[in-house]
């Protein structure tokens, strides 16, 4: 949730209900799965679950990035420029 806020310059606020609804759907679609890898037991809570992206998820992510890249290229070729100044991320 914090990563989503930081990556979007605080434009996206991902709440707990939205996050777990999304996790459920991504697992159902086979794009992520539960991971057995766990951090140092001293730093970990045994009840916590960890998730990782699957090969199908990576493939979908690649296709999405390609689609965005194409859309950006087309927009830039058409002379479209961002009107927004980039916002600095918080420290």
């Amino acid at each position, binding site marked *: *949730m914090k990563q989503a806020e930081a990556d979007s310059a605080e434009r996206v*606020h991902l*709440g*707990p*209900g*939205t*996050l*777990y*609804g999304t*996790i*459920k759907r991504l697992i159902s679609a086979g794009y992520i799965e539960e991971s057995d890898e766990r951090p140092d037991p001293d730093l970990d*809570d045994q*009840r*916590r*679950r960890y998730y990782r992206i699957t090969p199908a998820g990576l493939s979908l992510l690649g296709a999405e990035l390609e689609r965005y890249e194409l859309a950006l290229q087309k927009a830039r070729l058409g002379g479209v420029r961002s009107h927004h100044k980039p916002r600095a991320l918080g420290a």
Partner: protein
Amino acid sequence: VKTALNAPRPLDLVIRLIILAYPPEFRRRYGQELLMLIQDICRDSQSSPPAWRLYLQARALSDLAGGAIYERLQALLENITAKDTSVKTSQSPSFYRRHRQSLLITGAALTALIVSSVILGFWSYGGPGGYAVRVVQIGQAAMRYEGNWNAGWDDVTANFVADYVAAKYHDSGRTDVGYKSPHAASQLEAATKETYSSMEPSFDPVLCSQQAPTSVKYIRERVTQPGYASIVAAFGYSDGSPTNLVRYDLDLDLSKSKQGDWKISQIQCLSLDAMPSKPYVNRLDVPTGAAPGTAPYSQRNDRTF
């Protein structure tokens, strides 16, 4: 489930009730994680100022509640549209009995939405996010006398002056608002308290007047150096005749506390006759973005009592 939420008991109860509103399958699989995530949010927000903590918790809870309604409706739709007849129960007589909980929760949520839209003007605040902001605004208003932590220095001054004039001249005639105000720094509190104890009761050591002001305009607002600000409150005293307006000015100095809120550290009465032509010549002026000599916020806070 062993959970020691870092949250007050009523909030803990609300969180558990909302998680109970999720479909049983979802709750079994993700309920524990959701609870731990809320626990993290509550722990992280503990160090925040009260109004911001309220905002973070309201935002998380509104999202949690929205998720419960969405998951319930989706479970219901999946059941109705399922092609596998062994899963599909919508045609069976027991369908409404089996999904009674989902229907009741959805109905209750919709009723709450309609009632809250009437009471709080839900739609004028742009959905759940705006609704949470409205909740915080109400919380901030309720906490006014416990400290307006996130107000700017100009608003702190305006709040102090408005509270002071209202309490001293138009409400209860209280004379302790000068040093009991949440906007007064400790040194101002001590100085005002001492002055009160040694002065004649009829004289006001804060406004330096015995008469109720009829208006106030804020002039010469400026940040004197980072973390320090100065503002002049120009009080008007009128007997109703526009030609008989007397002006009396107060010079208020503010500084930012360690908690990040602005406090009034000093108040000086300025007689217009006694005012030097360049009263701020010895101060380091840091521009606030306004043109020299102009007051960026004064019109917003100016008022007639």
